[in-house]
């Protein structure tokens, strides 16, 4: 699975993009965030305030219950501030 991070979530995690092998017990976006947050202080810090973390799966906004699977492109980012 391809993971993308943007803005201060990218800055806190320390990389903008990584490939991971999805563990078998990770079935939803919520599971994925829990699993990532346990990977280290940088991830835990970036994902601490869970309600400000926006998630897109295959470039569409989704909620915590949305399923994730190998081959998905999953992006994590803070609320957008364009315009």
């Amino acid at each position: 699975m391809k993971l993308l991070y943007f803005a201060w979530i990218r800055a806190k995690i320390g990389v903008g993009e990584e490939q991971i092998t999805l563990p078998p017990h990770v079935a939803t976006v919520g599971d994925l965030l829990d699993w990532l947050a346990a990977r280290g202080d940088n991830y835990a810090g970036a994902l601490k305030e869970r309600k400000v973390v926006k998630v897109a799966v295959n470039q569409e906004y989704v909620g915590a219950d949305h399923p994730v699977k190998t081959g998905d492109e999953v992006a994590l980012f803070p609320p957008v501030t364009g315009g």
Partner: protein
Amino acid sequence: MTVKVQREDFDIGAELAALSEGDTQVGGVASFTGLVRDMGGQGSSMTLEHYPGMTEKQLTAIADEAMQRWPLARCLIIHRYGKLLPGDRIVLVATASAHREAALASCAFLIDWLKTKAPFWKLEDDGSTQNWVDAKASDDQAAERWQR
């Protein structure tokens, strides 16, 4: 319907002229241009990060929505990314319609929705410290009035 995500500046006069070019049923063109405000310090700047691919998709979806809600002849969104300086143009949204009400309302809609849906993030640099701009509650409220 035209959506452009680019590093380069754009020519507002040419873009707005193109919006009514060859269509003499267009009675009005509304536009909004967003500019980088000065953050105060010497050498201040703003850097726009975005999500290539998803950005274009979201902007296209927002423009589609405007075309469905109002009787528009054409609709344009141009959004820049990269490092910008005070006074630089960030974004242009513009709509062309037979009627001014449709052009004006859809132009406000486009910028409101874009601000809450398009994956861009602003990093302000006041010349000494860098700061990711926080999303504004007022932007969420502005976008909410278009919910239905």
